[in-house]
């Protein structure tokens, strides 16, 4: 039978989220992971790993109802500030935020989720201004 990456991912997630295991120590969870990887290697499906992990991430996000956001800013901002900005834009409380610094933006921030992007950077505003002037 041909098992799709999605099926692998949901099986994996089920194993990890099993109440018993969650209560178990971190070592136990890594045991599950090891076994899963060994199985993938044995069946020759290791090449699907990237896609399986992508699916796993998606399932977790869906289950927990948390939105992942990447905030890119030109200068250092505090984590609280980043979280506050993300909450405001995404209009949800359940946000997990990663933060990156990219001086190319000149100023302002950029918020990215999986499917959407809000560009509040000086760079993009300058670009659209130049477009309007020409």
């Amino acid at each position: 039978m041909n098992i799709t990456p999605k099926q692998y991912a949901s099986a994996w997630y089920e194993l990890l989220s099993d109440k018993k295991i969650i209560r178990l120590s971190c070592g136990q969870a890594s045991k599950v992971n090891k076994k899963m990887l060994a199985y993938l290697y044995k069946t020759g499906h290791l090449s699907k790993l990237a896609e399986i992990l992508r699916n796993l991430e998606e399932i977790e996000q869906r289950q927990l109802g948390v939105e992942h956001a990447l905030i890119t800013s030109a200068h250092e901002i505090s984590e609280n500030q980043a979280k506050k900005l993300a909450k405001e834009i995404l209009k949800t409380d359940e946000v997990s935020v990663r933060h990156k610094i990219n001086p190319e933006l000149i100023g302002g921030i950029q918020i990215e989720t999986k499917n959407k992007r809000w560009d509040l950077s000086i760079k993009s505003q300058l670009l659209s201004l130049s477009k309007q002037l020409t």
Partner: protein
Amino acid sequence: MDSIIEQLKKEISGFKAEIQEEKIGTVIHIADGIASATGLADVASMEMVKFDDGAIGVALNLEEGKVGIMVLGEYKGISEGMKVKALGRILDVPVGDEMIGRVIDPLGQPKDGKDLKTEKNYPMERIAPGVITRKSVHEPVQTGLKSIDAMIPIGRGQRELIIGDRQTGKTAVAIDTILNQKGQNMTCIYVAIGQKESKIAQIVARLEKAGAMEYTIIVSASASESAALNFLAPYAGCAMGEYFMDQGKDALIIYDDLSKHAVAYRQISLLLKRPPGREAYPGDVFYLHSRLLERAAKLNEDNGKGSLTALPIIETQGNDVSAYIPTNVISITDGQIYLESNLFNKGFRPAINVGLSVSRVGGAAQIKAMKKVAGSLRLDLAQFRELEAFTQFGSDLDEATQKQLERGKRLEKLLIQPQYSPMPVAQQVVQIYSATNGLMDDVDVDYISNFAKGLSEYVDQNNPELLKLIDKKGEFDEKWEHGLKKAVDDYKSIVDKEWFVEKKTEKSD
């Protein structure tokens, strides 16, 4: 100076930065001009996307969790993890009268480095005009080639396939047709798909020399360009043609050639991991061509009377018309012009096999005069071919057979026409009428071309009313026939005696 700065200040102060929500995805794989991306949740099929490095793509494969994107043009700057933004519009191409006389790429950008400003955009893929909006083909497209205009007539709105091996003069037929559209109220679009740049340059130079670029657009996707552009070129050209059709004008589009188009599409399909079928072409390769050629149409009075005539070209391998793509396109089109390499090598150029070539709808578009003379031409040639095969076994022939054979040989010679010399239809009628009515029977076979050419010039100079009548009425009467017979006799009296069979034999006696 002040005012410029003031103006600038005003514009800048008027600028408002808006927070825009962009739909994005992330590239997870890029190879051979095909990218896949996750995200892009609401993207539509054939929607344009823009990569963060500025490259443009088209979403083709919408799968669960990822999207297959065909990158248009250069893809070297795209890397894994790069963001890709949905532009929210279906792939389109600029159209307009401004494009006439230009060489452009399939995305509508000029290739000659000069500016091009257009106002309208048309979608590349469009549903063909429906039954209610159409009218059956009834106006002719004069190709200027005797054998085509007489026996395989093409009408405005028709789709006529030009098929043959490499080096049989397929492009030559198409180019001659463009050359002959001067003053015929026709906008021509030549779509080069996977051609050598040198060949395209040659064609442009030839069209420019003949003044044909004044009504021609060249859409060029050369062999060095990506498969994506090769795949889109015919649709882009078709959209430009549809613009003229919608204006109530007539347009002629040449797809040179659809075999390479199918190959480009096969490459894209295989890279998108669509399952291969016969000859590794994808399952929708028939639809690929049928949806394109269906867009050729003749519209009725209520819809502006415009037309789009399509001349697709297919290159066969070893004269095999029963391969996959040739049979597909033959079944889609309204007839085919079949070019043969052995005819070409024998010196019959254009190397059209008039026995195997057909035009299923063009007959209704032929002018009456041509219809009258072409009927006997076709019959005489068919009988000649039958007799020719038969007489290879014996030499004793009765006089009638002998006569028919001689007539046939002359007709075959008459249909030979050098490249880049299309002939007005009235001249064609004069020549074919003379040949089929025995007025050229006493001319030596070797001198038929010279005689016919001379006759045309003679009639043009001394009896222009004969040509004018055909041009004006499209028909001839008994008076015209008398006039022509007299003109031929007059002409015969002034030409070289060497050209005639009997007079030569008299001389040798």
